[in-house]
């Protein structure tokens, strides 16, 4: 469901599902929680393989942001047009920054 990598203290979580929807949200939440160790507070969510997210999937992403706490940051990378539309409809594009590639997200979190 996901794979992770750490670069310069930034945790990259690559979602390996085509759809993050209500049928997968509970398991997705478990897996991301497990990936978040105690001291991670900068995270890039790589959505390059994701074609579709619904409100349940978005809810999990918001819950991750909350878990990172006030000092944490969560950037979104490689969202396709359908996912970008979800973020703009729900105004979550004001809460999360959407980067075209994981690389540019990492650079910005590091800076």
């Amino acid at each position, binding site marked *: 469901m996901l794979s992770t990598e750490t670069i310069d203290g930034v945790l990259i979580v690559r979602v390996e599902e085509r759809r993050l*929807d209500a049928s997968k949200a509970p398991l997705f939440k478990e897996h991301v929680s497990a990936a978040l160790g105690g001291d991670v507070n900068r995270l890039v969510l790589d959505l390059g393989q994701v074609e579709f997210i619904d409100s349940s999937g978005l809810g999990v992403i918001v819950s991750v942001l909350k878990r990172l706490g006030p000092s944490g940051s969560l950037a979104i990378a490689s969202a396709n047009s359908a996912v970008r539309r979800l973020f703009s*409809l729900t105004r979550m594009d004001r809460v999360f920054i959407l980067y075209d590639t994981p690389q540019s997200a990492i650079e910005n979190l590091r800076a």
Partner: protein
Amino acid sequence: MSSSLSLKIDSDLAGVGPVARAVRALCSETLDELALDELELGVVEALNNVIKHGYAGQKGSLVQVRVGLKADKVVVEIIDQAPPMPPSALQPSDPWAGIDAAEPQDLPEGGMGLALIQMTMDEVAYSSRKGVNTLTLTKLLSRK
């Protein structure tokens, strides 16, 4: 071309994705990509709600999806026989009111489905008669 499609699926969240993609494919020559993205999202949220709330997440009941392609619009009907939605559910709501000033801790994690249905569709209607609920979602064709 005016055509109709009727899908019957089990009330199983795992079946929602394939059906939503089938609806999208059927409309793929009629709507543009942005409208297709919105249609797919609205249909998914509506089906999820019927299964999660109407049928309390239980498999084994039928949900019917009807797609009508008209000259000027696409109409998707979602038909179920679960207990109907409370009328209050359909009142316009904004789960993101005050989001600009909000702390992350205040952001909503749920309760966004009905608002998304309204935002992605041009018209939303709901009727419940003789134990049959019909949610009618209409997407108008953009005048190209």
